[in-house]
């Protein structure tokens, strides 16, 4: 177990694993997303109150789920970096933050497109929508730190602290719809079951799974790039590119 962990946090080993698995993971994720979204859009039944417009759920829910999960994993990575100074943890945070920003934006955008016909408005300042906007701002703030310091270690330290502090927003997003009156409905899928009919739920779960695969694949690729940036003058990198030639 410990050995596996040590291998995963070693740059050359991770690079090799990612190099091999990326194409398969990426292709698989595209296929699963296509399956889930096309099934949802063309074959699942029409919702009785919302009509056809509900189908945006097949993009909105996966995007929002991924956007938050990325931040959860970044919080874990930030603690790991702050205590054990494991460089892979900061590589992870720096690679994932832009992905998190993109998916938060996608969640906000698809939510607005759904809200206009359903609620009658693109945007309201209710607790769920506002806390999600704050998540996007947090991601952007983290990204802006990447090139704010001269020393690598200062960047990693600053990013970790901001990520950890921003973690306070996660339970607020999650619980906003339970604790306060919001325009956004409360969670449909919970541990105790789902209030979405099965015929609609199955493609949704497939789509969510596909989004997670996609983020894993792209995240690995971005981490490879970040590792190369940091280790460009090391021998193991030179050897890899020699082999290629």
């Amino acid at each position, binding site marked *: 177990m410990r050995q596996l962990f040590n291998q995963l946090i070693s740059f050359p080993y991770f690079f090799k694993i990612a190099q091999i698995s990326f194409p398969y993971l990426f292709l698989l994720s595209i296929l699963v997303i296509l399956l889930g979204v096309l099934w949802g859009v063309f074959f*699942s*039944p029409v919702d009785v109150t919302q009509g056809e417009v509900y189908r945006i759920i097949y993009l909105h829910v996966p995007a929002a789920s991924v956007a938050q999960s990325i931040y959860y994993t970044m919080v874990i990575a930030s603690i790991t970096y702050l*205590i054990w100074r494991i460089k892979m943890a900061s590589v992870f945070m720096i690679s994932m933050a832009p992905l998190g920003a993109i998916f938060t934006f996608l969640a906000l955008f698809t939510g607005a497109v759904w809200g206009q016909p359903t609620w009658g408005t693109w945007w309201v300042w209710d*607790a769920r929508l506002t806390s999600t906007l704050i998540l996007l701002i947090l991601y952007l703030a983290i990204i802006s730190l990447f090139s704010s310091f001269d020393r690598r270690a200062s960047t990693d330290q600053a990013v970790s602290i901001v990520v950890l502090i921003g973690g306070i927003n996660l339970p607020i997003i999650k619980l906003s719809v339970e604790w*306060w009156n919001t325009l956004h409905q409360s969670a449909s899928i919970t541990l105790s079951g789902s209030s979405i*009919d099965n015929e609609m739920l199955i493609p949704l779960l497939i789509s969510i799974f596909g989004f997670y695969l996609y983020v894993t694949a792209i995240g690995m690729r971005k981490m490879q790039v970040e590792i190369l940036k940091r280790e460009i003058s090391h021998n193991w990198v030179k050897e890899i590119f020699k082999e290629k030639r």
Partner: protein
Amino acid sequence: MRTKRRNRVIFVSSLVASLSVAFIFIVLAMNENVDFYYTPSDLTSSKIINKDSLRIGGLVQEDSIKISKDSLKTNFLVTDLENSIEVYYEGILPNLFKENSGVIARGFYDYSDGIFYAKEILAKHDENYIPKEVKKALVNDS
């Protein structure tokens, strides 16, 4: 090396501890004013002072919608199943606006005649997603 790591652990755990305290304070503070809308019971129990613009939310009471035939004037009751308030609105209603379904109205509550004059109506969707065929079957069963 060991003390260095211990210092880091102390740093991280004190950061987490102070964040948790901050979280509790934020939530306590937000409980006062983060609600997007008030319920009819909030209004009738006169918990709220006169505000020029506020929102009320609840269900549209059954058989309470009166839409004028030659204009966009609408009257209906918003209920939270304990109290209900009459809402007056002139304008286009959202598609999801119907009886027994969630609604949020923004406007002004006139305590003298007990009518809420809405400037904007939003429909609130609940967390249930049901196909048309299933709904029909459910209605036929009951």
